[in-house]
């Protein structure tokens, strides 16, 4: 049915609409019952908190004295936008994610390309590489902490190889923690990139490769001009999800045993950690709520920019 015809029939049937609507409701009323559990849970634990979060930002509100709510207007917003600790957290994450996203997806791409080529054992390797993905952050950070510690095996290896001259106390260093966390997280998460990119590679039409090979293209050219462009949707998805998750990082720092302010120099402070400290250490719920909204806006803005300037595909 063309659109014009659809509009026509909708118009002609208009007088009968109420009873037909009623019929549709009667026939398909089950639909409301089936989505009701979600709607109820979402209304209470999704929509209500959403409204509440906007409301809270205008108050100084604490659990210690619930009656003592002071209206501060946009005071929390002004404070948040100018808060050096919030931005310290954001810049820490920026450094961390820059390294993490490049390494994790670069490594994922390399391993996926190799797995795509080998004939035997592909499944075994994939299973192994995916193992850290299913392991908990607390456990992996406990292991990573010890592996990278000044008396751990990694630094022993670097010392023996002459790459470092003395043990590095990276946790108290002003800039190293976010870099080390990026390395540990690369180890934890690159398996996801492998699996997703490998699935993408299997989706590429093999005839493209055959045609290019006839024209004398090298392996690198095949990869650069056929594989990489074809993986655009997968890479785009990985970038978007990495940025969204990265800005909300919290567990890693907490599991490594940093205090809620990310150490003396805030070297491991993340925005969510700061939000946690504001709410549960300073007991300032209104300001913590504002920080949550600020961060959400930042994430939404970045996601929008990614969709705007990096189209996933030509479609």
């Amino acid at each position, binding site marked *: 049915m063309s659109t014009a015809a659809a509009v026509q029939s909708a118009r002609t049937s208009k007088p009968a609409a109420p009873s037909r609507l009623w019929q549709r409701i009667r026939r398909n009323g*089950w639909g409301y019952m089936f989505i009701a559990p979600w709607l109820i849970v979402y209304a209470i634990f999704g929509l209500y908190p959403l409204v509440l*979060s906007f409301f809270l930002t205008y108050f100084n509100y604490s659990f210690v004295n619930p009656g003592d709510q002071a209206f501060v207007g946009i005071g929390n917003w002004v404070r948040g936008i100018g808060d050096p600790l919030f931005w310290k957290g954001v810049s820490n994450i920026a450094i961390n994610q820059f390294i993490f996203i490049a390494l994790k997806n670069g490594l994922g791409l390399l391993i996926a390309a190799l797995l795509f080529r*080998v004939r035997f054992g592909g499944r075994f390797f*994939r299973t192994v590489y995916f193992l*850290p993905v299913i392991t908990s952050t*607390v456990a992996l950070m406990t292991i990573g902490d010890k*592996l990278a510690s000044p008396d751990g095996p990694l630094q022993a290896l670097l010392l023996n190889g002459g790459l470092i001259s003395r043990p590095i106390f990276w946790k108290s260093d002003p800039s190293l923690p976010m870099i080390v966390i990026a390395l540990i997280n690369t180890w934890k998460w690159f398996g996801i990139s492998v699996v997703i990119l490998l699935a993408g590679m299997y989706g590429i039409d093999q005839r493209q490769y055959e045609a290019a090979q006839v024209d004398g293209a090298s392996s690198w050219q095949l990869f650069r001009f056929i594989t990489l462009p074809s993986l655009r949707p997968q890479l785009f998805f990985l970038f978007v999800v990495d940025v969204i998750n990265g800005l909300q990082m919290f567990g890693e720092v907490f599991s490594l045993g940093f205090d809620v302010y990310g150490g003396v120099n805030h070297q491991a402070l993340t925005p969510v950690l700061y939000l946690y400290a504001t709410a549960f250490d300073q007991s300032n719920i209104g300001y913590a709520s504002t920080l949550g909204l600020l961060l959400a806006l930042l994430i939404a803005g970045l996601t929008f920019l990614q969709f705007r300037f990096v189209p996933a595909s030509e479609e």
Partner: protein
Amino acid sequence: MTARKFPLTSILAYAVLIIGAIAVLYPFVFMVSNSFKPGSELLNTRALFPQTFTLTGYTGVFEELNVLRLFRNSLLLAVPITILNTLLSALAGYAFAKIPFPGRNYVFGFMLTTMMIPAVLFLIPTYVLIYNIGWVGRFESLIVPSAVSVFNIFLCRQFMSGIPDELIEAARMDGAGEITIFLQVILPLARPALATVAILTFMGSWNDFFGPLLYLNQPQNWTLQLGLLQFRGTVPGENAQQIWALTTIITIPLVIVYFFMQEQFVKAFANVSLSK
């Protein structure tokens, strides 16, 4: 990739893959073998494997912590959350895929919009809400809000859209009620989607420590993850043996499940990307 070049590049490829596999597995081996070392060895030697094999780390952690209770608490969260979420997400996903109730597209569009809101926004207001309901320190605080989730509904809906309408119509002709159709026709056909939802939900809950940290932070309510986190913070350096034992204890069960179901696990994560 001509036949002549194949052996050399192939050897190189395997070399990289094997180095990668060793790098991925080494930390796990490190963890397990540390858990069997005596305390003095943990402090003073760098050998990967224990020179004297001991179980004192394990016996010690069972004395210090009620490990079985940690397991029980983790299961008390993960099992109900997984069952409820899989069932309710499938139910709503089915409605969005196959029941043309008036207003369906509006509700679905609204749902997709809410999916884009970053989780951090809900953190504080949800805590305020749960605090005011009086659920802090109770398992409901995590089970009820996780009983159904937008993303899982979306996954189920995408999968169920592919189920032919004729199957549903045929069951209706045979006089099956709507709930019977859902349970006996839709659920069996949607098994791959349900496996994905169940695996992601179970893992999310099992590995989560932030939720339990916020709502269940009393020793009798600690989950495995929170137990490890809190136990690490108690006596720095004193209980290294026990920390390694506990880390091994909380990691190995999921690793075993993973090796038996690795195909489903990997698919679950790949599905997440394909559905976007």
